[in-house]
């Protein structure tokens, strides 16, 4: 029984340690007056308690409390990230299935799929949003463009990892399928896809986080107010006055990223019956 509690307990312990270290650092630096690497005061490093209190208070007059506002924004951003993640994963998977059956297509497209990882996609996120937005149908506008960014960020790692997984089928198992005179479709679904699942989930774990990042960044240029990216941008303006609000937002953003990641890990546990190796 204690075994199952071990991971959550470690997380809680780590969080408490982090809070402790935070306050310790704050205390030491304010007492000694050190200014490196940066000046420490209540604005640059608000007390943890201040941040927690900020959740319960409204950020602006006549508005619900910060936590409620942030949860709404989180839902908005989560929607963008999830949509992009889902669509991107499907596209990536289909692309991998197509490529595994044609060495010619592989040699034609793989170098770009690999090279694209070095293009700072996030850097073009603002432009993509501006470009795509007008093309989307009415209800999809705004958040849909951001979802496109998440899709783009997801489908490359998913495609390349799934392809590697599909190709990683045990050659002896492939021989076994030949003895059954198996059709290409049977080999794909009964052998290649199941053995590619660990690779696929490794990519999904990465993409889950990246989708959230992409969603947050994508919201910036359009001035989308309804999401976390917009909230970060806004609270950044008021940082010198109310630093704890930006911190609170960042805490929520961090939790969103972690939540997506944990969901993928749980899904992996459910689908793949072995214990998933924790691959960063």
């Amino acid at each position, binding site marked *: 029984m204690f075994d199952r509690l071990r991971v959550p307990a*470690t997380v809680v312990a780590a969080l408490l340690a982090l809070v402790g270290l935070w306050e310790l650092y704050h205390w030491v630096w304010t007492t000694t007056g050190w200014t490196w*690497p940066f000046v420490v005061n209540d604005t640059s490093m608000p007390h943890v308690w201040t941040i927690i209190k900020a959740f319960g208070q409204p950020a602006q007059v006549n508005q619900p409390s910060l936590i409620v506002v942030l949860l709404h924004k989180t839902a908005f951003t989560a929607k963008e990230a999830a949509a992009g993640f889902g669509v991107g994963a499907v596209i990536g998977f289909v692309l991998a299935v197509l490529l595994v059956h044609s060495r010619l297509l592989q040699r034609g497209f793989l170098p770009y799929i690999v090279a694209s990882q070095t293009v*700072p996609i996030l850097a073009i996120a603002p432009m993509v949003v501006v*470009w795509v937005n007008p093309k989307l149908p009415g209800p999809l506008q705004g958040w849909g463009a951001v979802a496109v960014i998440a899709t783009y960020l997801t489908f490359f790692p998913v495609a390349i990892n799934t392809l590697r997984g599909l190709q990683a089928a045990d050659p002896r198992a492939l021989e076994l399928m030949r003895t059954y005179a198996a059709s290409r479709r049977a080999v794909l679904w009964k052998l290649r896809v199941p053995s590619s699942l660990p690779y696929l989930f490794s990519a999904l774990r990465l993409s889950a986080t990246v989708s959230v990042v992409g969603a947050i*960044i994508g919201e910036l240029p359009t001035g989308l107010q309804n999401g976390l990216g917009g909230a970060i941008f806004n609270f950044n303006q008021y940082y010198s006055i109310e630093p704890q609000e930006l911190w609170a937002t960042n805490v929520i953003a*961090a939790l969103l990223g972690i939540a997506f990641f944990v969901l993928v890990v749980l899904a992996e546990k459910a689908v793949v019956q072995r214990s998933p190796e924790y691959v960063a």
Partner: protein
Amino acid sequence: MKRIGEWLPALVVFVLVVGLWEALVRALHVHQFLLPKPSTIIRVFWTDRHTLWPAGWYTFKEALGGFAIGSGLGILAATLVGRFRTLGKALMPVFIAANAIPIIAFAPIFGAWFNPISPHSKMAVAGVLCFLPVMVNTLRGLQSAKPRQIELMRSYAANELEIWRRVRVPTALPFVFTALKVASVLAMIGAIVGEYFGGALNALGVVINNAADVFQFDVAWAGILVASLLGIALYGAVVAAERIVLRWSPS
């Protein structure tokens, strides 16, 4: 001769895509506004080089600094945690979960700490982005020494330091380089995106963002090209270093 055959399909695709892009934009006359022709981008890349290239170098220095500091600290932290094996194994899920935090969201805070204009704030973003994957992978590499090899070293009455030098570190090196490759890409992206939240006027991210704001998309895309080339250059440098250090590795 065979090697050309391997590259040919990729080359064909490249030519086709670029050609198609160019042709479509010319033919349809639309979106030249938002998605300029490749020829335009290359042209602006050259004509505006006096703004773009120095800006790229400025941002590259931020990325490089962040990469060096972040990766260095990551390796150091992994070494420290790796000494205490049970601690390392227990904390692994925590580190991996921490890797899922959108660090970019903290860019404004780094800006507040180090002054939004100064390059240090962007270096901090790049550094933090590099720190986690490098630390996690280095730690995993240090933990992956084969027990049989450790046993062998003990039979030679080797002490902990020697075991580290002769077994754990060489085993960890491939993992470290994998992480460095990832970090090299993240560093550049971190620096540029960090600049979207504020930065010096001669920083590449700011140049790109400002150009986009006034709808000068050809300049913006040329800036992206600069950023990509620099990112690829850093990645290539890591790969070259890897080839030298890991000459013994079969993969």
